[in-house]
């Protein structure tokens, strides 16, 4: 018999230690904070009332949602305004460019007209 076998045999034959369950460490050492109550005072009637952590968070969320909505609307309005202005600017720029082009064409026509008249009078003179 090897020493390993002998040791295991001794343990198995003589062990009278009564088994217990191994500990479960779920949430061990995690301190769950107490359910703190928050006091809220009504701005109108000045009456104080208490809400728990979850209720307080819910109220805070609602306040945030309302503010967020207002802000979002404001921003959308501004964006719309900016969009209209941009379109107007683009239209104006296009109009200017077209007018410039038209003026150049007019100038060319006048020049060509003058040139052809000059050539005609030179031919008649000869």
């Amino acid at each position, binding site marked *: 018999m090897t020493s390993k076998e002998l040791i*295991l045999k*001794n*343990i198995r034959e*003589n*062990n009278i230690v009564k088994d*217990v369950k*191994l*500990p479960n460490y779920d949430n*061990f050492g995690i301190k769950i904070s107490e359910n703190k109550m928050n006091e809220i005072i009504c701005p109108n009637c000045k009456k104080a009332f208490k809400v728990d952590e979850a209720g307080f968070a819910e109220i805070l969320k609602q306040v945030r949602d309302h503010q967020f909505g207002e802000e979002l609307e404001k921003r959308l309005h501004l964006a719309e305004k900016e969009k209209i202005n941009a379109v107007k600017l683009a239209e104006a720029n296009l109009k200017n460019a077209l007018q410039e082009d038209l003026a150049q064409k007019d100038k060319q026509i006048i020049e060509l007209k003058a040139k052809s008249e000059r050539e005609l009078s030179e031919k008649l003179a000869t």
Partner: protein
Amino acid sequence: MSSHSENASKFVANDERMHWHDQALWFVREKRDRASKSIPEWEQLREFANQIKTHTMANLDTYLLEFEKNATKKGIKVHFAFDALEHNQIVAKILKEKGVTKLVKSKSMLTEECHLNPYLENLGIEVIDTDLGERIVQLRNEPPSHIVLPAIHLKKSDVSDTFVEHLGTEKGNYDPTYLTRAARAALREDFLTAQAGLTGVNFAIAQTGGVVVCTNEGNADMGASVPKLHIASMGMEKIIPRLQDLSVFTRLLARSATGQPITSYTSHFHTAVEGGEMHIVIVDNKRSQFLSSTKNKKALNCIRCGACMNTCPVYRRSGGHSYEYVIPGPIGSILGSAREPQLHNSLPFACTLCGSCTNVCPVKIDLDSQLYSLRQDLGSADLIDGKKKMAMKVTAWLMTKPALFDFAGKMARFIVPKLPNSILYNKANIWGKQRDLPKMPEKSFKEMFKDGELDD
């Protein structure tokens, strides 16, 4: 047959030393108290540790096999040693096969228990203890006097004198920093030149097949990492089932031992160093006998923190060497006298049964109850000192005769106050060596009870 009281009388002869030894250990005990009170879940941790150890001992065979399987998978060679001699033979064989001539050893009470150092030295292998306290006592050719603080019985001047002789330090320089640096320089050389390192084991995790060693000096890491050969020696009770159980013990161990939140090094060894070899030697050496003992089975739960020693009023005033067993203090008195009752029959009596050891034990070992029951076992086995036995017999005889008992009490109350100190505090009155006898009451308890003089 050892006599704790005779050895203790040598220690207490130096009154100054006895007092600073007492105060030094009480300082550690107070640190332990502060550290344990700093975490609210302390008592829950103690209960967890108790459950883990009890469960492990109940299933020890299963966990040993699981540990062996998982360690082997990682390339570690696992050996089983039935007793101390076999442990030493296994270690010596491994070292001889690798041609090792120098071994660096980190603190291991098991190798002290097996007397490994002299065994290897006889075979021509140099053994260097690398824990500073262990190295000091090794150089002085003394055994450790405490399992966590091996040189607690020595003063700075004693250490300095030892280093002058062995390390060539400056004579009369008692500066701890200077002395520590000198030891460090010498040990660094040993780490670099040794061909093998041997460590103890604080915890062996069955689930992972690895071992964990806790030190404050990092010497186990050096010993296990620099040489290519690492041997870890462990008592079979060091097994814990799962990795997650380790955190319970690491939190308890350092706080209980020295009052630290954690040891400076908590090193996990799960395989050999690259190109090296790792061996683990699992030792029984009469441990399995505790599993069959109704009264002493919980002694195997010990994690060797030394808290029971630091708090024990007897240990603090008598020193570790007075126990003459490898592990001193309350837990050593149990292990020693249960294993070798003929040799250590005086140890269970080196106790006031105050129960302080039980109160501080991180794994809830019922130390004082075990010591009390061991006294009864020794009495039944006729292993009590003759004088003590005779005194007990006389007392038992007297107490079974109420009239005689009352008369003896009356005579003592009458005569003792009239005796001169030279007779009262004679050589035979050991109790009176450092204490005054209390003032004798006028009436016995029985008389006061009868006369209605006792408070409710």
